[in-house]
């Protein structure tokens, strides 16, 4: 049987093509592969499900063993967030034209170029910055590249990194900035913000996150920008774009590079496969020269008033210069950029403000509700956006109890700390349900303790 995916495996056409080429057998094309390198047996792979329905059954039985966040009530965040994904976002990014396109020229792929140009342009408005990259892999990579950009720009090899950063992200930064760049960790202050720091002229950048890993909104951005600039360093701020309808964009308080993840903008959680990174700067040529990513820009055509698109400053890239380019560039996460553009266009300024206000209010409501359920809420005095940490006796035990009730209560940061995430998807009733479940679990623990 000719497989539906391999038309020219059909014996008749195969013979016809071989004849046209003048080859006797397909083996002829492999004559350059020495016999000792040839695999002399079939690959040892499972029996295939050639019939689509059999494959569907197999996949459904595997995937049916997962219980997702639409079945359970999930308060998991920590870098991957359960925001509402407008149906139009899914409609656009599942269009075959976008889903299966790649690297066409700005003529036959005009639409792809325009969609990505519009994405970076809308991000530019949100960030109040003029230069935004076509998405890189994720927020981790964006942070790593932003710091390398700062180092290349300043010619220095040391960065001060906020201590309120996820452990995995720090792991990525350590790997990615090795071997040449030193990371100095800044302390976390008692309120959950970046603590007091000392800088000198060997630092290339201060790296700040807001909201940070604890969901705390950093309020000292301007001060840190001034500190950095006073030492010839840059301020690099990682900010979640979904907060920027209500929170000031990094540029507003003096950041030189903004970066972060755009998964919150209309992309499903996708078990962590929905991440995509943005990096933004002002239109400052020396700094723009440090971008490794593609930058798309408007170009005129032979017809006045018509917009074409193309790569800005292509000669920065590894495509153009191999190892002499800035880091590297390749397939990354463009479709999520298009999707985030759709999201921003749907939301507009009003929607972005409202979603921010809703998240701020519900986060605070959840903090109060869990405090009411008897948990100690960390950094309670700070402004929180979407996440906050609570201290418990035994994080794993509490989460197990909640999971038994169909609640994913949060991400354990350590044995006694749970990070709780609340978005506009969580209704007040959802939060009340969590608080009640926590209170009842604590009662059960108390009783268990008494026995």
């Amino acid at each position: 049987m000719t497989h539906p995916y391999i038309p020219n495996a059909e014996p008749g056409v195969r013979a016809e093509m071989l004849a046209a080429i003048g080859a006797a057998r397909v083996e002829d094309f492999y004559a350059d592969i020495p016999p000792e390198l040839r695999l002399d047996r079939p690959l040892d792979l499972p029996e295939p499900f050639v019939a689509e329905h059999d494959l569907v059954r197999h996949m459904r039985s595997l995937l049916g063993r997962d219980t997702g966040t639409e079945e359970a009530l999930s308060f998991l965040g920590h870098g991957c967030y359960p925001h509402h994904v407008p149906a139009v976002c899914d409609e656009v990014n599942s269009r075959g034209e976008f889903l299966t396109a790649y690297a066409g020229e700005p003529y036959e792929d005009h639409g792809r170029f325009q969609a990505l140009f519009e994405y970076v342009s809308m991000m530019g408005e949100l960030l109040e910055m003029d230069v935004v990259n076509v998405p890189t892999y994720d927020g981790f990579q964006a942070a790593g590249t932003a710091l390398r950009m700062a180092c290349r720009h300043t010619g220095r090899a040391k960065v001060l990194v906020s201590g309120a950063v996820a452990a995995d992200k720090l792991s990525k930064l350590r790997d990615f900035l090795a071997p040449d760049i030193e990371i100095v960790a800044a302390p976390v202050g008692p309120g959950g913000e970046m603590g007091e720091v000392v800088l000198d002229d060997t630092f290339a950048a201060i790296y700040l996150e807001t909201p940070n890993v604890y969901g705390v909104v950093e309020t000292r951005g301007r001060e840190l920008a001034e500190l950095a600039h006073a030492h010839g360093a840059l301020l690099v701020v990682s900010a979640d774009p979904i907060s920027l309808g209500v929170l000031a964009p990094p540029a507003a308080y003096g950041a030189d590079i903004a970066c972060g993840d755009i998964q919150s903008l209309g992309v499903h959680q996708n078990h962590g496969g929905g991440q995509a990174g943005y990096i933004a700067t002002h239109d400052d040529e020396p700094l723009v020269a440090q971008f490794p990513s593609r930058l798309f820009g408007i170009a005129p055509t032979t017809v006045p008033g018509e917009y074409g698109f193309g790569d800005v400053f292509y000669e920065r890239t590894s495509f153009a210069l191999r190892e002499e380019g800035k880091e590297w560039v390749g397939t990354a996460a463009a479709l999520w950029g298009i999707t985030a553009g759709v999201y921003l266009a749907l939301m507009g300024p009003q929607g972005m403000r409202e979603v921010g206000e809703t998240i701020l209010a519900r986060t605070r409501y959840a903090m109060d509700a869990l405090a009411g359920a008897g948990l100690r809420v960390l950094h309670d005095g700070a402004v929180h956006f979407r996440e906050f940490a609570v201290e418990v006796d035994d994080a794993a035990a509490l989460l197990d109890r909640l999971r038994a009730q169909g609640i994913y209560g949060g991400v354990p940061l350590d044995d006694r700390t749970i990070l709780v995430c609340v978005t506009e998807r969580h209704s007040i009733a959802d939060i009340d349900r969590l608080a009640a479940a926590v209170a009842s679990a604590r009662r059960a623990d108390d009783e268990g303790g008494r026995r």
Partner: protein
Amino acid sequence: WDEPIIFEQSRPGQRGIAVPGPGAPAVELPDSVRRAAPPALPEMSQLHVLRHYVRLSQESLGVDLNVDVGQGTCTMKYSPKVNDSFARAVAELHPLQHPDTLQGVLEIYWRLERMLAEISGMARVSLQPGSGSAAIYANIAMIRAYHAARGEEHRDQVITTMFSHPSNAACAKTAGYEVITLMPDADGYPDIKALRAAVGPRTAALLITNPEDTGIFNPRIAEFVELVHQAGGLACYDQANANGILGITRARDAGFDLCHFNLHKTFSTPHACGGPAAGACGVSEALAEFLPGPVVAEQDGRFSLVTPPRSIGKIRPFLGVTPNVVRAYAWIMTLGAEGLRQVAETAALNNNYLMHKVLQIPGASAPWDRRRIEQVRYSWQELSEETGVHSEEIGVRAADFGVHYWTSHHPYLVPEPFTLEPTESYSKEDLDEYAAILAHVASEARTDPELVKGAPYNSPIHKIDPTPLDDPRQWAPTWRAYVRKHLA
């Protein structure tokens, strides 16, 4: 469609979606963090947003629409629709759910890892990297960690070849290595004499593609690996071009210590305008302890996450690009060993058939008279010298006939290059049609070169003047920059 920039369609007061109200007391923000002015995002009704993007989508060409053999090295094969439905099934999974609630995806990771290990001959595989280049980088990071663990930090050079993907050189450089690039010899193979000269105590690794982007398979590849091993270096195989050799030859069997695959090339996940993609790193037993963590472990049919003892840490957040892992798994599961071999053989058959057709076009050539596996880097040098029409112009004109034709092949070692890779997905008629388009444009180049140079004629827009894109005073990487520089 003559679709305006989205900002031009904004109308005050419109909105595309409504947001749940707070339902709880508002939080007052201190001035230091409150946004001062609303962002100037477009304001549009939902239908208008949708219409805009549906029109833009129609102005893009995907595999679903065209004979996509002209984006050579990119392996634009059919990405089965049924696999998209499996990818959608993981949309609402959170990566940090308790493993008890994720047994399905964890098993898929584990199974795909085992299958890729078998396909490559490697011992272990990581599916964490977000793309092929990220996988290259992860491999380099493992190479670095491996040497460091052995106290051999002095190994600071990697060797690659000119027809390996630029990311091999670029990632190595990013990771702090000095890069030595081997040029092809007169036969089109990487120059083994140059390799002999390059290897030494500073050699950390060889990073090499095979077949290279020329489609030529280096028959002395095992010798290359051996030379590097003798010098104490590791050999790392860029298998971006694996589509023609699945089930035919394996990385580990040639002695490689590491390799990577692009799930979005060889294993059919969609290119998605340039990602999300996914990469897989395969390593020998000796390197398994350095793999990025976590990886999936199995015991008694239960799956859990473990981090290898000397893991290089995180390459990206979470476990990997799960929707693509699921797609790639499903793709292999519908083909099996026999199907994968048919994929490879048909990719080679299609490539050789197309080469046969293309080389009949006067003015087209395939530098180096060698056999090719799954792609060919061709040259229009002859045609260009005769007509003054450049390969890039031929590509734009070809687009008028509804196909892609990609020319970005820096540095232009092959003059007036174009690279075709027909994969296993296209029919004989498709290849005939593509070759006929090239032949037609080549003949236009002879009879009416200005016609070809004036293209496109069948695009939403006309010929682009790229000069402002490289001029800092004029470039406009966002609409706000454009408004400021050109409309103010």
